[in-house]
């Protein structure tokens, strides 16, 4: 059938062979592909499945790894919702009238993030947390025209730095680092010292890469106002059902990753870069934004808005080059939040808090362990100091199918004997006690 149809089409074009349609490609650049012949769907599926089976069986592993990606429960309904083919097989909603479903769903996502962060203007996503932070630094320079420095504390994720370095190539912005104090929080004295007229803005992560929460946030608002600079706050959306919204304590821009909301760990991607800012900065924002409006009959409707900021209209004067983002993951996060509800979210957040504190306490009771290493409040992740070599400890736990946390020795020279351990609602009492027992055995 295909052959007959193609013959008709070629006939309509007045050509005999399909290759005649490629006669504009010069012979000198012609080439053939050196990859294997195709397979049937059955064969291809079997082949890929067989490879995937070489990954560790997740049911046989008890992981306490976090550091930016967390193991949370994803209700089956989330997969059903993002699996609706009208959602996942659609393109960016350029034609609003025929794309109301996705537009409204993304507006719900923006509304959820606004409610959690306390900042009204939200985009439909950046790629992930580090790229959201990089865009926030670039936006800070658009907000505050003067100044060349942006301050980043040392207690933020190690993968931020190389991403920032690349995004700031060719910009007249320099990153200056700020120390952390003995509690793992930003060293306020060092921050104060480095704040001056040349500072465009500064970043505060809470929880930070040690899981530590900043305990006195009022100081940041004062500092920001003194130097008229931009305050960018990085956070975890799950903690925001318990923690004061950063918008209420001075944040101009909030970034983070919505991965804890309905998105699997998936080897680190796709996740969804969260980006919210104060309403007065909307024209300086990067990325796609959905706005509320009406149709010609006065019925409520949604569409992409403020598009003159974007690359497809503004080209070299756009606020960012981003086009494809992580929209379907934003939909996953929105559906997760509605399935949980306000009370459900709070319950999960408290469960994370309680289980993490339970494990920290149990670890701290073991000989040769100190948990948390930084004596600050934390959410679902904390540092553990060990009298053993952390790599050795890690290897020995691994043999028992426990991953006790991410060793920080590669990342922070002053933390050569520290692990970063995360505990979510997924960890059962058996797993928590199992890890404690394993540590006890390993320590000997």
């Amino acid at each position: 059938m295909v052959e007959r149809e193609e013959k008709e089409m070629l006939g309509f074009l007045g050509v005999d062979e399909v290759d005649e349609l490629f006669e504009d490609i010069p012979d000198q650049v012609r080439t053939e592909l050196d990859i294997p012949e195709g397979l049937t769907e059955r064969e291809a599926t079997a082949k890929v499945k067989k490879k995937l089976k070489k990954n560790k069986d997740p049911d046989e592993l008890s992981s306490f790894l976090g550091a930016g990606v967390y193991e949370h429960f994803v209700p089956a309904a989330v997969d059903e919702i993002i699996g609706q083919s009208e959602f996942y097989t659609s393109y960016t909603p350029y034609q609003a009238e025929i794309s109301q479903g996705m537009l409204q769903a993304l507006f719900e996502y923006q509304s959820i993030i606004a409610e959690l962060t306390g900042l009204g203007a939200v985009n439909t996503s950046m790629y992930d947390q580090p790229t959201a932070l990089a865009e926030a630094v670039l936006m800070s320079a658009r907000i505050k025209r003067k100044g060349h420095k942006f301050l980043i504390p040392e207690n933020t994720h190690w993968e931020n730095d190389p991403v920032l370095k690349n995004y700031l190539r060719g910009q007249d912005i320099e990153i200056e680092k700020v120390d952390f104090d003995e509690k793992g929080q930003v060293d306020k004295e060092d921050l104060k010292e480095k704040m001056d007229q040349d500072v465009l803005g500064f970043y505060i992560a809470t929880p930070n890469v040690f899981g530590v929460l900043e305990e006195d946030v009022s100081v940041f608002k004062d500092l920001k106002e003194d130097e008229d600079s931009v305050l960018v706050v990085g956070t975890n959306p799950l903690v925001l059902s318990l923690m004061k919204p950063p918008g209420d304590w001075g944040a101009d821009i909030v970034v983070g990753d919505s991965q804890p909301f309905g998105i699997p760990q998936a080897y680190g991607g796709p996740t969804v870069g969260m980006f919210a800012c104060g309403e007065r900065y909307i024209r300086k924002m990067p990325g796609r934004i959905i706005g509320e409006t009406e149709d010609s009959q006065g019925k409520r409707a949604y569409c992409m808005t403020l598009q003159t900021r974007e690359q497809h209209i503004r080209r070299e004067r756009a606020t960012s080059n981003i086009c494809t983002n992580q929209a379907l993951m934003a939909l996953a996060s929105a559906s997760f939040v509605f399935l949980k509800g306000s009370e459900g979210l709070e319950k999960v957040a408290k469960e994370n808090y309680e289980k993490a504190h339970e494990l920290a306490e149990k670890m701290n009771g073991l000989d040769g362990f100190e948990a948390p290493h930084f004596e600050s409040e934390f959410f679902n992740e904390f540092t553990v100091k060990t009298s053993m070599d952390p790599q050795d400890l890690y290897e020995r736990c691994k043999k028992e199918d426990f991953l006790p946390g991410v060793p920080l020795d590669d990342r922070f020279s002053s933390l050569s004997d520290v692990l970063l351990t995360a505990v979510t609602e997924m960890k059962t009492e058996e797993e928590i006690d199992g890890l404690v027992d394993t540590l006890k055995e390993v320590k000997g």
Partner: protein
Amino acid sequence: MSSDYRQARYEEELLMEDGVEREVEENPLPENIARERAPKIPDLPKHEVVRYFNRLSHMNYGIDTGLYPLGSCTMKYNPKYTEKLASLPEATSPHPYQPEEFSQGTLEIMWELQRQLAELGGMHSVSLQPAAGAHGEITGLMIAHQYHENNDDDRNEVIMPDTAHGTNPASVSMMGYNLVEIPSEDGCVDMEALEEAVGDNTAAFMITNPNTLGLFETDACEMAEVVHDAGGLLYYDGANLNAIMGKTTPGKMNFDIMHFNLHKTFSTPHGGGGPGSGPIGVTEELASYLPVPTVEKDDEGYRLNYDLENSIGRVKGFYGNWLVLLKAYGYITKEGRDGLERATERAVLNSNYLRKKLEPHLDLPYKSLRKHEFVLSGKKLKDKGLKTKDLAKRLLDYGYHAPTIYFPQLVDEALMIEPTETETKETLDGFAEAFASIMAEDEETIKDAPKNTAVRRVDETKAIRDSTLSYMMRD
């Protein structure tokens, strides 16, 4: 489809409207950072949430609904087996920092995909890290930047033709480069203009081939020579790769850096805006500049390699959009050499067939043989007091997604049409008939469109004026 098409039309209030004021009780956090008021998010029965999103999905149009001929977006059918594979727990569960020995399946697939893409692009090495096409572009420019810096070469200009995708100039500006845009001649790069534009300041030349008019740039090798002679690098925007698989490669055309759009050419779904994936490929000379980590194979298996001499470092967290990579790997593995070349052939056949079917109705600027897409001009519509936008909206009433409109900018009232290989002749004939039928309609009907969609013509000006970007911002 026909003008009988009817999209679902429900009255759906935002769920966020149902949130209620409530205090957080027994908050474990210290008082001065503890939230007092709970976020105003509704507590609803699960099945009501499922029904709500289900109804919203009925007010959305995807490639599974019908033809989606958005030019430069390559909206082809997204196979279901790859979706299934990407939902297996072995695929979704791995933590990015778990030991490499626990992630051998993932790493093996990533390594093989690196090799497959290198072959498809005629490149030496590939990084899977960039999350989207524009992200790949800017990664490529970072590599060019580092390369010139290592050569103590202070080049500050990037050249591109006026047909370039909007992301190209935006990426150039973000990297602090000056943009040099050269005019096209007969829809292709004007070699004289290029020769005039290149010089000691040329860091790179960016182009897509076939270009956004769907025309193959036959002078590609000459361009490479001109740019290389001036000491610049050539960047290939891979958005249009679906037009050349098995016929030629950017490597063969002497490009140095390129990106792939896995969510276009390799059939991973676009998800209403993303996630996509934009791996980049480079020549042997630039291999050591790729972002880290890349995936390497040695005697003990597969591992993440952070040790690349000139690496630019990172462009995002972790290793790329793994689940998207997995789907593209499944697609390439199933299609194979023969399937991919067939895809290109049929995409180009469909494009030219539809082009000839539509030519009687609107003008086709520039020569006629096109690759995977073509661009019509709607300037004729102006005689009737209509715009391309009106035609696009009326197509929605017939149950078709509209083409890309008003791009490329050098075509007046442009309609950019890319049918892809997964459409039948019958679908294309139906689209052409709808087109013909609309051209015979009176202006009022067209201006009044759409009327068969979930909402009527959306007031975009009001959206800008009100700038209501969340429920919180509603007055």
